[in-house]
């Protein structure tokens, strides 16, 4: 490669210089240059893995069928245009026989599956779309065969075969749409084929993960996926749990740590004792659910079947009517072609694809962020909600106390904090810890103390700087003989925040007050704002006291709240709110909100997915993923929109085409080509939905990180 022309940039595929018109394309993360689009496609054929052997067989049938059909079409075109010498009747008969010979294998290899399915369904008393295709193709074929025998002038083998080719192409596009969806969700679907290395009797046995029972010990080598939910018994390693939690940082697992199926073991070998049967892990359930969605043949299963049960016979009648009507005006062949066009174009293939692909993608995208949605219907309902009600403690707030205010009588807050921190040092109580955090964050050095003593449920004492210092509830301080200054009493009377109050005093005098409260989670405010921006109403339903709930609602910017609700009251409050806003989603921690979650249109439980395995919530949101709620709702809206667009497109398209066909304005071959195009549109639309919806969720994350 020493010549000048070769030293210029070469096409990644054919290695010819790309010239000025180079063509960039990213393949597997690398930028490649191609000299033409064909080379770009050809290059990608050689990369990437082969898969789906069934698809290959469908393709071979399609290719061979297309080969024969193209030959038939070629000859037919030559016949139509008169290139084969119309005058020579003898030759034409010969060509007709040749076409018959070519068409018969096409009818067998491509028409066979359609006819077989149609017959099988007919035995169960159902007339399906396959019947329409079969009747259309058989009518054209049968009529043409009779014409050949009767030495007639016109044959329609091209129509019969091309319709079959194009419909098989449509089926292939559908199948590949499912395959591509499945591939984009591969980590989730891997569970089905997963195997585990079970250690028993000092030996390793490889077996399917579904056969793993609780108590079995499983060996996980570096780089492998953990196949079971369980506990580490031996070894140390970092695990990436992105498939379950959506967070890609690795967590160190040591003996005693809980590990979840689906996470990737990074660097060390682990022995894990399974805690649930291999078929019941979270990962496996997600996988099953997505697979079920992908397998769905139709919009809503039974519904479409019911429609088809009426629709298909109606189309058959319409086709017969069309033939009858047109045969009164034109030649019988043309009338028959109009009838075949009606049969072909009425086939509601794209309709069956309208929902499953987009829904499966939606479920998968959510699962990639650790969000488990129990079924496509839930996603659909979530797409309809206009309002979200929240539980407070543990859902919007951390559930841990935080110091939210400190008041010193003499104005020396620093001194107050130094002493309270010095006392708190001697305790592991949540309040003491909250004070330690607060003080540490402000860089205050605790006063060293001696004789620190804690009185559980009341307070604690110690000697700091030679003075007896105490910290605790009002009663405790009074019991120690401390007097409470009037200023503080006023302040306490004005306390509307519902905070926990801790008095701090020394030398028999209360010197100050710390206010502690349950703090909102980082990002909760941003999340609520994002919901409001998306036009979704929010509301707080809490069992906590009024001041505390009011304070949280103000902090988070929530306009409506109800406090002091028992679980039963929450259900009633939710019902009231639902009447005003239509369907409402309820977000709770899933533990004490069971009834209200079950009564909401969509119940969303926040918490570690593994803890909630037994819960009945419709959606499980990992604690860390609360910020993704707006993204999730957006995703649901988008999926719903795509499903509706798809269904509208498929139905409208069919109806318009049906009208044209009945008027004899549509050739059957063109009708079939339109149907294949329709399937392609629906697949493309569904896949696009997945790509678009991936963005808002991650954008949300970025937003979330920036503001905190």
């Amino acid at each position, binding site marked *: *490669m*020493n*010549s000048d*022309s*070769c030293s210029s940039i070469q*096409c990644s*595929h*054919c*290695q*010819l*210089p*790309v*010239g*000025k*018109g180079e*063509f*960039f394309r990213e393949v597997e993360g690398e930028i490649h240059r191609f*000299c*033409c*689009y*064909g*080379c*770009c*496609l*050809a290059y*990608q*054929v*050689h990369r*990437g893995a*082969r*898969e*789906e*052997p069934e*698809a290959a*067989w469908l*393709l*071979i*049938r399609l*290719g*061979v069928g*297309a*080969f024969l059909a*193209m*030959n038939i*079409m*070629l000859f037919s*075109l*030559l016949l*139509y*245009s008169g*290139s084969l010498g119309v005058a020579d009747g003898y030759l034409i008969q010969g060509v007709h026989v040749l076409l018959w010979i070519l068409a018969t294998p096409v009818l067998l290899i491509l028409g066979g599956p359609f006819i077989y399915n149609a017959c099988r369904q007919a035995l169960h008393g159902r007339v399906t779309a396959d019947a329409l295709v079969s009747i259309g193709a058989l009518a054209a074929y049968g009529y043409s065969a009779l014409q050949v025998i009767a030495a007639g002038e016109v044959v329609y083998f091209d129509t019969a075969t091309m319709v079959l080719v194009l419909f098989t192409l449509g089926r292939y*596009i559908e199948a*590949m*749409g499912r*395959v*591509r969806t499945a591939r984009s969700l591969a980590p989730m679907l891997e569970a089905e084929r997963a195997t585990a290395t079970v250690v028993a009797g000092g030996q390793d046995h490889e077996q399917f993960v579904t056969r793993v029972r609780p108590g079995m010990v499983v060996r996980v080598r570096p780089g492998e996926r953990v196949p079971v939910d369980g506990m580490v018994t031996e070894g140390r390693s970092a695990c990436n749990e992105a498939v379950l939690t959506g967070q890609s940082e690795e967590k160190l697992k040591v003996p005693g740590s809980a590990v979840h199926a689906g996470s990737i073991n990074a660097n060390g070998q682990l022995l894990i004792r399974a805690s649930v049967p291999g078929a019941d892990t979270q990962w496996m359930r997600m996988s099953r659910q997505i697979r079920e969605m992908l397998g769905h043949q139709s919009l809503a299963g039974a519904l479409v079947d019911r429609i088809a049960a009426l629709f298909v016979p109606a189309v058959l009648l319409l086709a017969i009517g069309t033939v009858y009507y047109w045969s009164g005006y034109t030649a019988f062949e043309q009338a028959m072609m109009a009838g075949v066009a009606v049969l072909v174009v009425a086939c509601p293939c794209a309709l069956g694809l309208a929902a499953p692909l987009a829904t499966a993608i939606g479920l998968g995208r959510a699962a990639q962020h650790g969000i488990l949605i129990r079924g496509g219907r839930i996603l659909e309902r979530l797409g309809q909600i206009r309002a979200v009600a929240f539980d407070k403690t543990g859902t919007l707030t951390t559930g841990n106390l935080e110091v939210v205010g400190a008041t010193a009588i003499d104005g020396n807050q620093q001194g107050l904090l130094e002493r309270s921190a010095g006392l708190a040092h001697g305790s592991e109580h949540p309040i003491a810890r909250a004070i330690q955090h607060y003080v540490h964050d402000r860089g205050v050095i605790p006063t060293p103390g001696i004789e620190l003593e804690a009185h559980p449920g009341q307070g604690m004492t110690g000697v700091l700087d030679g003075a007896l210092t105490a910290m605790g509830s009002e009663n405790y301080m009074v019991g120690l003989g401390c007097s409470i200054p009037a200023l503080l009493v006023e302040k306490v009377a004005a306390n509307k925040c519902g905070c926990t109050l801790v008095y701090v005093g020394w030398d028999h005098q209360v010197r100050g007050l710390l206010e502690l409260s349950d703090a909102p989670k980082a990002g909760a405010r941003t999340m609520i704002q994002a919901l409001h921006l998306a036009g979704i109403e929010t509301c707080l339903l809490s069992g906590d006291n009024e001041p505390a709930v009011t304070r949280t609602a103000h902090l988070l910017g929530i306009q409506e709240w109800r406090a002091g609700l028992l679980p039963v009251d929450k259900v009633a409050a939710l019902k009231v709110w639902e009447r005003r806003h239509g369907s409402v989603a309820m977000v709770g921690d899933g533990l004490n909100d069971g009834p209200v979650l079950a009564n909401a249109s969509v119940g969303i439980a926040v918490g570690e997915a593994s803890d909630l395995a037994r819960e009945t919530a419709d959606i499980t949101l990992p604690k860390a993923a609360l910020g993704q709620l707006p993204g999730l709702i957006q995703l649901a809206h988008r999926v719903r929109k795509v499903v509706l667009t798809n269904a509208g497109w498929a139905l409208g398209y069919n109806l318009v085409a049906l009208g044209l066909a009945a008027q004899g304005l549509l050739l059957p071959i063109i009708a079939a080509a339109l149907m294949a195009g329709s399937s*392609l549109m629906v*697949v*493309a639309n569904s*896949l696009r939905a997945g790509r678009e919806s991936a963005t808002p969720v991650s954008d949300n994350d970025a937003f979330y990180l920036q503001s905190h």
Partner: protein
Amino acid sequence: MTRYLLIFLAGFAGSLHCVGMCGGFACAMGPGRGHMATVLRHLSYNIGRVVTYCFMGALVGYLGAQIIHGWEETSLAIAQRMLAFVSGALMILIGLQFFGIFQRLNQGAGVGGQLFIQALRDLLKHPSPFAPLAFGVINGFLPCPLVFAFVIQASASGDPLSGFLIMAALGLGTLPAMFLMGGLGARFRSKPRQVNEPAVSVRLFKGHDTGLWQWPNWRLQGVRIAGVFIILLGLITIGRGVLPIGTHIHIL
């Protein structure tokens, strides 16, 4: 007949482009069980490919005829001329692309393109004796500038028979090189291919230090010759559109 000979030659020269683009497929198709099976595999691959070309030729010829005859009798000649002019211009544009002169349209590999890639990938190494035929049929639809140029020529002919013959001539022109690639592929398949290694077709002729094996240069020249043929045919087609009716271009 001269016209078809010209197209055959264009196909023959242009097949040096095929060697780069589709030669890898021919190589990867691999040997069958036994010598005859190998020959059959490559024969059916190439027949599939050429039949697709012929089908496209006849189809666009037919469509061209429909366009022309869709006009009123009086403006028929004008329609024919317009079709010829547009087709000729497009052919020249494509021909010039072989010299790297024009910016190519950056088509997106949408779902259609991805399905196409997947289909070829699934079929390429399938052991079934029918797989090469199916592969050839689909391969024939791969968007290749050479094929594009002659599909346009076929549509300008305004006649299914001419369209068929144009594409058949092109297809036959590409046969020798593609067969050769298949044979070479079968011979050199002993060594498994590395992930980022170019196809056998390219590797074989990547004339390292020996001046004799400056194959990319040869191929480049061949591709340019094909470009010249296409431009020439494009000019003639345009000529049919603009020259006075009495003018007769001999080779057409």
